């Protein structure tokens, strides 16, 4: 027990290296100076095991105690600093990046839906359709360039960004070609829009989704870094306590005094630092966990719900664009609408979002969105019945508004969808704020520790010096 502690920490590598030297054949070659050092080291070792002179032993004890205490202080400061940095990265870099990635994904799905809506309105295409479509494209391309600059080291994200940057101009030019052919009332316009939509759904949306998931994974990794227990600091603290205990015991054997106040103070400082570290870390850890379960996870679920809604909307519109060949789009609508809310199968996104919501405000927003979704599905079924019976005009009016049979249709799927999307967007905002708050709390819990901990350790070192110095003075 005793010996290894002494050799390892007190005399360090020097002792280990040189002690065997006198015993070897090389003794005559060892120069004077070096011999002296060997002797010092040997006596130091001797002092620990109880052979050196008492003052030397005391000095050595002071040195070792100072070293382990400083080591503890340093490890405490660095591990806390690392966790703080990770928590800051989480709140200030990774979280915004994942928000951006989600927004790229969302705005592309939205562009697909709004392009189809504008197309369906044809010559009556409203200014609003146009603006909505262009805003989505602009948002996507602006966020893509920002993400390209920011994601830097993330290879997965960079690759998806490259794909999206390459595909986006092709997509927009196909949509433009579809618009102009549509204005000239040529059926080939439908082919252009279907082709554009196909590219969007087979290449671009999957890339955006991959990018989003890469950012989410990165966020999870950073969160894990930030909440990992500072084992090294704990180990150093325990070591310091053990060393202090050991020397106190030796001192007790030598002087018969039970407690050395200086050493007690050192141990106290180490204990206080460890308690502070433990408390700070567990608070930080739990608020990071909160930011995950209540903020991050619900933001992700709501984002998924919103995008599922947009995909369903895009397919609903494209089924009408396909004019009589929309069966595949209709099936896809069913899939995404089912992902949002399906009693028997599907992902039950609405239900899960509601359960995951942080507070009543969030739950209410999701519940409202859910009601709109049900309306939407009912209206959609009606529109599809009309289309199947060959009443395209009625189906069109039910979907994007307009007149059918001389009457203006008010209850459109567009209105229900837009209401649902607005509610979900508000819910995302709400949960995003919760996430930010929790992540901030996590950072606050550790503040002061990187400075306070080392200061306490230095005070501890001073205590040890005073306490041992008093004993040392007795030899003068």
């Amino acid at each position: 027990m005793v010996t290894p502690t002494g050799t390892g920490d007190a005399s360090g590598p020097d002792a280990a290296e040189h002690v065997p030297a006198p015993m070897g054949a090389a003794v005559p070659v060892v120069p004077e100076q070096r011999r002296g050092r060997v002797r010092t080291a040997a006596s130091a070792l001797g002092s620990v095991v109880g052979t050196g002179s008492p003052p030397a032993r005391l000095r050595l004890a002071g040195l070792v105690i100072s070293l382990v205490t400083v080591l503890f202080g340093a490890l405490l400061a660095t591990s806390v600093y690392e966790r703080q940095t990770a928590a800051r990265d989480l709140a200030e870099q990774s979280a915004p990046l994942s928000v951006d990635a989600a927004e790229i994904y969302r705005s592309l799905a939205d562009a697909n839906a709004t392009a189809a809506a504008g197309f369906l309105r044809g010559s009556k295409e409203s200014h609003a359709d146009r603006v909505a479509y262009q805003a989505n494209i602009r948002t996507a391309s602006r966020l893509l360039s920002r993400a390209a600059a920011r994601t830097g080291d993330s290879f997965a994200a960079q690759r998806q960004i490259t794909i999206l940057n390459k595909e986006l101009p092709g997509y927009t030019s196909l949509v433009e070609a579809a618009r102009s052919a549509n204005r000239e009332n040529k059926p080939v316009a439908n082919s252009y829009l279907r082709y554009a939509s196909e590219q969007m759904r087979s290449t671009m949306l999957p890339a955006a989704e991959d990018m989003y998931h890469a950012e989410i994974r990165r966020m999870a990794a950073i969160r894990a870094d930030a909440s990992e227990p500072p084992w090294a600091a704990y180990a150093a603290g325990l070591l310091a306590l053990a060393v202090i205990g050991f020397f106190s015991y030796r001192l007790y054997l030598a002087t018969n005094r039970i407690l050395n106040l200086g050493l007690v103070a050192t141990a106290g400082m180490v204990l206080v630092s460890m308690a502070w570290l433990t408390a700070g870390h567990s608070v930080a850890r739990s608020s990071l966990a909160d930011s995950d379960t209540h903020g991050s996870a619900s933001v992700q679920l709501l984002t998924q719900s919103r995008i599922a809604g947009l995909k369903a909307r895009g397919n609903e519109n494209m089924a009408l664009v396909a004019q009589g060949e929309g069966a595949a789009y209709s099936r896809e609508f069913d899939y995404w609408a089912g992902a949002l809310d399906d009693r028997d199968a599907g992902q039950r996104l609405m239900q899960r979002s509601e359960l995951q919501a942080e507070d009543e405000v969030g739950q209410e927003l999701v519940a409202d969105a859910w009601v709109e979704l049900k309306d939407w599905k009912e209206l959609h079924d009606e529109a599809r019945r009309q289309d199947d019976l060959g009443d395209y005009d009625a189906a069109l009016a039910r979907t994007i508004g307009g007149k059918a049979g001389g009457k203006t249709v008010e209850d459109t799927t567009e209105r229900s969808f837009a209401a649902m999307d607005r509610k979900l967007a508000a819910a995302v905002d709400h949960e995003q704020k919760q996430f930010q708050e929790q992540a901030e709390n996590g950072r606050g819990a550790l503040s002061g520790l990187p400075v306070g901990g080392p200061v306490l350790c230095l005070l501890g070192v001073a205590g040890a010096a005073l306490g041992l110095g008093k004993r040392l003075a007795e030899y003068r």
Partner: protein
Amino acid sequence: MTAGGRGGGMREATAVGNSAAGSGGTARRTAPPRGRRRTAPARTAAWLAAAALVAVPTAGCAASQQAPTTGARSAAQAGAPGAPGAPGAAGAPAEAPRQGTPAEEDCDTTVSPAPGSGSQNGPAVTKIKERGELIAGVAQNSYLWSHRNAEGELAGFDIDLVEQLADALLGDPGAVEFRTVPIDRRQQALAEGEVDVLVQAMPITCRALQGTPEEPAVDFSSPYFETGQRVLVPEHSDITGFNRTLKGKTVCTAYGSSGYELLSGEGQEKYGAWMRGRPNALDCLMLLQLSRVDAVLTDSGLAAGMAAQEEGTRLAGPQVGDDSYGVAVKDGADDLLRVVNATLEEAGEGPWQQSYDRWLKPWLGPAQPPSPRYG
């Protein structure tokens, strides 16, 4: 029969601008020869299918493994005709089997009853007269045939014919309700009485006459339009028709059409053309406009519509093969067929020509109404 059958597949593409998925051509059409294949479709199909298999699981959000993505859909469509072994990917379960079902035997497609062969006032005609309105299933994106004009009204060669039918049945060309029934349930709509007639440049095929597990059988009138495959090329192309000038050129055609069969056989093996298949013949026009293909092979009716949509294209060379379009009615509605056939005979004396000259002559040149064929 051969002619009829051939029309079937291609027509899909044509009239309704449709996918292979639609009501389908005969077996011969749909399952191309397995011989040497110079072109990409099979490989493309295989790649698409593979890509879809990879993409589908990765694509979904957390749990969306089964998402029927477009990738999966096109792969399935590509897979059906091109690679019979390709797995029917998740997206298009309905399409694939329909394509692959072979029509075992040829049949006689000239079975339409002559106008004078029986009653012209049976239950089908009575129903229409009592209603006072003819319900016609038509396409809405078949340029020159049945297409919404700038005012949103349907117009074209097929629409003119529907109006003549309404005139013959009810004495009023305007007594029509047009229904744009989705292509994959148009035969069902006819069988269930949702529509009285289908006038959508529909080819007379054994498949439609005999029905399939998915689609009930229908009856056809005597042909009202004779067609065949044509090559559509850009104005300054050096392709002169379906011949050796296609060597090394990429030609687009719709899956499952007669053009597809022609191209994958003779076109590739004799003339050295490369082929590119799309679910829909109109997609081929788009690819031609985007300069991704050198020519489009499709039937003359649809080719005329394409040439009309795109200035700077022309039809090259003579027509290859014979198909014909007929008016479809519910299976067994012979009384209605007699009225339709009588109307067609009557139309052959003038109205047909007027309508043809108005819509199709600028693109297809002069033509005569087809002579009646009764069984």
